[in-house]
């Protein structure tokens, strides 16, 4: 039983994070503890003090702390001291970022929309060269001449449909990585040294600048959102990672052009 009260059931969060290893959880712990300072409840637990940095040993504490960030626990104390479900958190973040959601949408779809919104806001801050780097990084077959002025929502969505999990994962990795660098001054730790890391590092700066500028927005939304938004983006990326793993793809060995040929046909039909 966790020291911080866990809200169960929470099917969108508990099963996913319990599957993760310590490296995959590392950035989440960073958001919860480095931003929380002396007020971090996670840091005060016996489990954290005993097992840190072996985060998987106290994953329930991590989940419970995320759930509590989503709720007003002053009111929850009277109701048993638990936070809110991850779905409530994601809907709250979506609402604050003005992402339109449909009640009943699967959680990965809402997370994807949040990722796109963050990317869109970041897009506004990018130079043309950075925009080109980003688009080519995700979809190498898209030439510079295709660079749209507005955020290419349709292009990216088509790419996601055509490329499936790989493009979704790449997108989530770019955004989560950029947020990690802006917030924790380090990237996604568990991909360090892999081909994916080298690929994402190639254009991390472009997105990173835009995301760094977005930090002001997260601040305005309220202190809890400085933790919640990075957590949601990281969890979205972990969900894509595990979806890929479940389909037999090893994302750690993924190359920059993975899924390219499958997408090329669809993109060609749509945009030529």
């Amino acid at each position, binding site marked *: 039983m966790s020291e911080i009260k866990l809200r169960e059931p929470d099917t969108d969060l508990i099963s996913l994070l319990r599957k993760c290893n310590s490296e995959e959880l590392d950035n989440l712990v960073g958001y919860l503890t480095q931003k929380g*300072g002396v*007020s971090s409840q996670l840091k005060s637990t016996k489990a954290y003090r005993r097992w840190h940095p072996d985060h998987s040993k106290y994953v329930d504490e991590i989940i419970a702390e995320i759930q509590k960030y989503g709720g007003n626990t*002053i009111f929850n*104390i*009277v109701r*048993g001291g638990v936070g809110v479900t991850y779905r409530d958190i994601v809907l709250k973040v979506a609402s604050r970022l003005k992402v339109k959601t449909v009640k009943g949408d699967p959680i990965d779809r809402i997370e994807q929309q949040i990722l796109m919104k963050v990317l869109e806001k970041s897009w506004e801050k990018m130079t043309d060269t950075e925009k080109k780097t980003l688009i080519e990084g995700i979809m190498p077959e898209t030439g510079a001449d295709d660079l749209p002025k507005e955020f290419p929502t349709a292009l990216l969505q088509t790419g996601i449909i055509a490329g499936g999990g790989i493009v979704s994962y790449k997108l989530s990795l770019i955004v989560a990585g950029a947020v990690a660098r802006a917030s924790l001054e380090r990237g996604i730790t568990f991909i360090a040294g892999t081909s994916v890391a080298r690929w994402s590092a190639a254009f991390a700066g472009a997105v990173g600048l835009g995301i760094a500028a977005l930090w002001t927005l997260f601040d305005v939304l309220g*202190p809890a959102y400085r933790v919640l938004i990075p957590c949601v983006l990281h969890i979205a990326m972990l969900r894509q990672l595990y979806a890929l793993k479940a389909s037999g793809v090893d994302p750690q060995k993924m190359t920059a052009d993975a899924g390219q040929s499958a997408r090329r046909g669809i993109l060609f039909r749509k945009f030529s």
Partner: protein
Amino acid sequence: MEIALSEEIAAIRARYGLSLAQFGSLVGAPATSVKRWEAGVDPREQFFFQLYLVVGLIKNPDEVFYDLGRQGIPLDKAQWDVFAALVKGADRSIDVSAQIGLDSPEVGQALVTGIRGLLTLIAGSFAAKNALGEKVSASLATRIATLLK
């Protein structure tokens, strides 16, 4: 499980031996209001926040410390622990007294002092240089300041 606020107030007063006036002083309300709340009358909206905060502080001051931290309100842990110890000590002494067959201790005033100390610390955190806290929680500051008058 959700517990009705009226039952919560009655249970707290009975456990700590607080008079209607003592409990009322914690939330800035007269004794007659406390009596009505216990009888099941819903508190006016302005008292809801104070009631939840004070009930939260009595039941689990540590939880409130961390929750305020999540909302960007920085508090001095060492100072907080001093007053939280009064609240927790009052609670524990009731249980231990029962275990060793001692009459229930008179801890009402210790509890009131502890809660007022914690509320003062919360209010003080808004006066500190804290751009986020001031911006995000101005209404919270006003409510707690009113409480401490």
